[in-house]
């Protein structure tokens, strides 16, 4: 009598022939896109993309219809739409990053980081002048906004997670509403409440005040999420050891949430670093490095990009792209930093 051992089979796993079939569907769809574009008046990239999509959806659903029936055909048909949606979401990102790199790189040179625009106009050759005033200005704005918004944002988050008072519901709602305040409205508000009646002059501080309004909701919401992740055991342990609430929060909860709170700050900075509308209204946009944020016009990257873009000559447009490239790089770096910090935070727990 022969013994046979049961071998596990995976009937759901894809076999090579399945991959081959998918590939052939793909190729047939590409081929039919070529044929259709060649013999009908449809032309251009749009024509190719459209016919390819229709052909692919048609072929896969036809195959599903023949082999598995109507429900499977519907499933395959929708699957192509779902894939199309994902592709259409990603295409603009790729295109934006690609164009910024392509158009910005010619404008990047070493002098960009050591000169300002006080001796140059946007229409000068690209070698003249640089971004120094814009970079220092943006740093100043971001730093001031950080100093003002982080305490308020974190206090709001603490109120929502630690105190849980009777205003928790309304405040959570208001923070959400605040995150939808258009940036131009924040600018107008500072204009009418601070700049005209009190300060009377453009300065970096005015811009930073407007940016603070835009930054608080991001910091508050992210910090709230982070603080909610801190296990309640820690708070109970702190109280059980005789700690008052404020000592528990200050010495246990906040240190435990440290990297998450830093992530919240970074995301807030990424949110405001490229904010343009309030900057245009409030900072005055100087062309010289201005170390004093409290008086005198302060240049910044968005203002520089805006001004160069509106100057319109090819050199100025190249400047604008170079500025955009620097700005996007800053935001990318901040974002990656926030990602790695928060993922480490999760992994450690």
């Amino acid at each position, binding site marked *: 009598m022969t013994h046979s051992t049961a071998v596990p089979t995976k009937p759901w796993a894809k076999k090579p022939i399945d991959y081959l079939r998918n590939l052939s569907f793909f190729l047939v769809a590409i081929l039919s896109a070529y044929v259709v574009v060649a013999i009908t008046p449809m032309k251009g990239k749009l024509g190719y993309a459209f016919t390819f999509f229709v052909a692919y959806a048609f072929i896969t659903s036809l195959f599903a219809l023949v082999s598995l029936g109507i*429900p*499977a055909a519907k*499933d395959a048909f929708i*699957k192509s739409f*779902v*894939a199309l*949606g*994902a592709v*259409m*979401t990603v295409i*603009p*990102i790729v*295109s934006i990053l690609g*164009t*910024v790199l392509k158009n910005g790189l010619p404008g990047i040179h070493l002098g960009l980081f050591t000169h300002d625009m006080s001796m140059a106009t946007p229409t000068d050759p690209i070698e003249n002048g640089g971004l120094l005033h814009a970079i220092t200005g943006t740093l100043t704005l971001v730093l001031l906004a950080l100093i003002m918004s982080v*305490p308020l944002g974190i*206090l*709001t988050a*603490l*109120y929502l997670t630690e105190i849980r008072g009777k*205003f928790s519901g*309304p*405040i959570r709602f*208001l*923070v*959400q*509403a*605040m995150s*939808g*305040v*258009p*940036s*131009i*409205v924040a600018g107008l*508000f500072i*204009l*009418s*409440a601070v700049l005209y009646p009190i300060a009377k002059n453009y300065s970096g501080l005015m811009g930073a005040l407007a940016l603070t*309004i835009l930054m*608080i909701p991001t910091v508050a919401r992210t910090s709230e999420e982070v603080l909610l992740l801190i296990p309640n055991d820690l708070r109970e342990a702190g109280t059980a050891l005789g700690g*008052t*609430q*404020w000592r528990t*929060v200050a010495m246990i909860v906040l240190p435990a949430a440290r990297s998450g709170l830093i992530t919240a700050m970074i*995301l807030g900075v990424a949110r405001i670093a*490229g*904010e*343009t*509308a309030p900057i*245009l*209204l409030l900072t005055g946009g100087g062309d010289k490095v201005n170390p004093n944020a409290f008086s005198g016009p302060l240049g910044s990257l*968005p203002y520089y990009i*805006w001004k160069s873009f509106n100057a319109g000559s090819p050199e100025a447009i190249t400047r604008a*792209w170079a500025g*955009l490239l620097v*700005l*996007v790089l800053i*935001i990318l770096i901040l*974002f990656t930093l926030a*990602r790695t910090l928060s993922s480490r935070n999760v992994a450690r727990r």
Partner: protein
Amino acid sequence: MSTPTVSIPAPREITTEPRRSDKVFRRIVTAGGLSSLVILGLIAFFLAYSGYEVLKSEGLKFITSADWSISTDDAGNVIDSHFGLAAMLVGTMLCSLVAVVIAVPVSVFSALFLNFYAPNWMKKILISIIDMMAAFPSILFGIWGFLVLMPSVEYWAKLINRYLGWIPVFEVNPYFFTRSPFVAGVVLAIMIIPIITSVSREVFAQAPLDRIQAAFALGATRWAMIKAVVIPYGRSGVIGGAMLGLGRAMGETVAVYTVLNVVFQINWHILLGAGGNVASLIILKFGDASPYEIKALMAAGLVLFLLTLIVNAAANFIVKRTGKSGK
């Protein structure tokens, strides 16, 4: 043998009263927590206060008329002024509606892709890319839209006009497609797709696993499962996400100003190169505005603020309710 007398200490008073340090702490945190209320209140107050003069002299015409003109004599005194936001309000609605109509299907499909179709590694990468896109500055979208996207969108607009021109909305009477509300709408759509996608994705991810598995166990295909379980569960969340995107689109300034041809004329034809947007009006007129016109701009800002506040509040209300809905 005598038992030693034991002095029983007086029982300590037990209280739930927080100590003084805690009271101070709680006050400070509550004060900080109320900052959002204070700031929103101050915004409404100061914009209303600065715009009051104009709002009073224009009355309801500030919303209903489409005229924006101011004339001053040589000394700079205002002789005559008409401020009306109607054209800008219609333009704001058109641009943001175009944006939402384009963005919602794309976002829903990509949220479905992320949740139910994508392999795990792809899902992680895509989510961080999409989140990153939400942090891109609007000036980047504006300049990219103007220099890269606009030529192709104009071509698409001409296609739509050629085949669907008999529908009144797609009519283009002076044959002029450049910088139309449609172009602005497409740029805005690209800006709000990440927002709607991430809201929808989070709502879809909350769809109850037992129902999903039950649907599969009954032999449902993936689409049948989505139609029977995920869509009914997440519908109101998607609507809320769409309204969040609408709020963002209505308040967008720089990107719209860069690609839109601002004209003070009510225009319902989305493909025609004339439109408006309250926020871009403010940027356009701010540069050389007289003090009186600035007051009008403040009033416009107030209208925009209230508009976005209402849309956002409704959106948050709908999103929050999602968890409880679904059969």
